[in-house]
């Protein structure tokens, strides 16, 4: 062992243990919002889990929150499914956010079928992310979705009204959006870490 080795190659090969914590692993599913990634325990969306997004009204930035993720996923191998969106997605607007609309499928479903359709999509294992706007979802229904997301290795997003905040939820992550006085995101529940005390500001750019 008389050879001279550069230190960096040893460190890179992880053959030398350093008594300092390694930097937190980059999340597998970053949200695209650096400030939000920094406070979430998984460094992004919880993998293969249900995330609940609670909003006071439509149009307060709920899609902006997920569009960076959808843009990234829409260039992957599995498509993104929207189940019963409240309005039609504007193709030009989504494209401005970098989403490939050829990889986004829209499922129209009646109110009673939304949860069934979402579960089928999640369970199939052939969707990267499934977004749904369920009106009536109780604790049991959300638990089913959580199990289906886990089984199908997909990201599930459920957009619901803020009044559901007081009800317990089996979702791995609960975010609450606030529009006034400025757009902010509160983390209300996150599995695997403490809930941050401060909200994260959401900068709302026009595309």
């Amino acid at each position, binding site marked *: 062992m008389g050879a001279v080795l550069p230190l960096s190659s040893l460190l890179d090969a992880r053959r030398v243990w350093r008594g300092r914590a390694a930097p937190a692993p980059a999340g597998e599913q970053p949200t695209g919002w650096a400030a939000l990634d920094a406070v979430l325990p998984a460094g992004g969306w919880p993998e293969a889990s249900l995330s609940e997004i609670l909003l*006071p*009204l*439509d*149009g*307060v*930035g*709920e*899609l*902006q929150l997920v*569009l960076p993720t959808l843009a990234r996923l829409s260039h992957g191998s*599995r*498509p993104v499914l929207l189940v019963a*969106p*409240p*309005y*039609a*997605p*504007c*193709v*030009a*607007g*989504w*494209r*401005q*956010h970098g989403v*490939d*609309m*050829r990889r*986004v*499928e*829209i*499922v*129209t*479903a*009646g109110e009673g*079928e939304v949860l*069934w*359709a979402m579960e*089928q*999509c999640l*369970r*199939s*294992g*052939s*969707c990267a992310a499934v977004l749904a706007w369920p009106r009536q979802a109780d604790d049991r229904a959300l638990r089913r979705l959580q199990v289906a997301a886990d*089984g*199908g*290795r997909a990201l599930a997003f459920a957009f619901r009204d803020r009044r559901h905040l007081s009800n317990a939820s089996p979702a791995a992550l609960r975010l609450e959006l606030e*529009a*006034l006085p400025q*757009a902010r995101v509160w983390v209300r529940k996150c599995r695997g870490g403490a809930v941050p005390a401060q909200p994260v500001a959401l900068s*709302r750019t*026009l*595309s």
Partner: protein
Amino acid sequence: MLWACILLPQLALDGVLRRRPGDGPLVLVAGAAHARSIVAANTAAREAGLRVGQRLSAAQALSAPFEALPYEPELADRWHRFLAAVAYRYSSEVSLLPHAIVLEVSRSLSLFGAWPRLESLLRADLEALGFRHRISAAPTAHAAHVLAGVADGQAVLERAHLRHALQRIPLQKSRLPAAAVEALPGMGIRTLGQLLSLPRDGLRRRFGADLLLALDRLTGDAPAGLEAYRPPDGFDLRVELSHEVENIGALIFPLRRMTADLAAWLAGRDGGVQRFVLQLEHREGITEVAVGLLAPEREAGMLFELARGRLEPVQLPQPVLAMRLIARDLPPFVPAGRDLFDERPAHALPIGQLRERLRARLGDRAVHQLGSTTDPRPERAQKVAARDDDWQEPSPRPTWLLDRPMPLRGPAPRILAGPERLETGWWDGGEVCRDYYVVETAQGQRAWAFCAPGERAGWMLQGWFA
């Protein structure tokens, strides 16, 4: 040459039994109205003491109540042909013999594996379809037929061993011309071995050329002389229900059988189905349920689930007497390729099948994609299934779009960007002249709204920057 023979001892009975869920005593009867006799009985009926050949009146006196259905030769014939189509999957040379199907399998062995494996595949298929059977193999078709009649599972794979295997077979089971089978035991000839060792010209003088030809076919000295079976180009299966059915739920069991039959038949011709029709026959008229798929399919579970999804919402105007499945559109089927190291979970469903499942329950137009058009008017800027391109709109566009604009209520919004003038469409009657702005409402929502040119009032909401 190696021929497999599938003997179907209870073809007519199995054809009837497989479409009814219960297993009470049941017999098939045939003959003139005043002298009907039993031609087939299921297990429960035999346990109750009913025998084939019994007069129906005698049976009724003997036994507790049982079900008696007329024996329909044409129905048995249809099942016979159906099973030949299923066997066609394993060989291109399939022929029909009385109560049996023979197929030439010597060239199939390299594809499906050695004979025991092919035999188990055949048995699994017949088991799944609900037909009792005996299977044998021999170097000639007629020898295989004879062996299957003697015992189940016999296989003579070498031509050299054939004569030896035929030695001990009693003449009653030899399927030779009836006149010879009756006369020969009187001459002390009881087995095929004895018969084969007799001088040929003596046999010809006594029994004619027919017997010699049959013997030569048995040993392979003459060609089998069978007509090759050709599968039909369309699938048409009709099942009469045992009673009038008033709710859809009771049709599910026969439907499962029918779709499984369709799948087996499709596998036989190595094709798929893209469209099929379920006809529910009433006393007057029929109800048609069309099942359309995005791509050819042939997997039994998938076909059943899709057909069920279409059938369940149907409202029955009258009770159903019979159900019929017709498939004419049979494109070639290309199985989807899967990665060898696919990491998806075991119960995963490919995206195509997921779409079919959603469409079956939610409607044909339930799953769609949006693409943009070249029209700048927001109401016409995108449509379902349009080809999407990469063109980027330079001005801001919202993420949600309303189907039609509606008044924006509340106090006057704060303007963030705009105006963007849209003035077009005068040539097709949909003329618009609008100034679009990005505005923020008092609740903090960001909206895409327009008003008449030059005015900043009377806001109409077109979309949300959600």
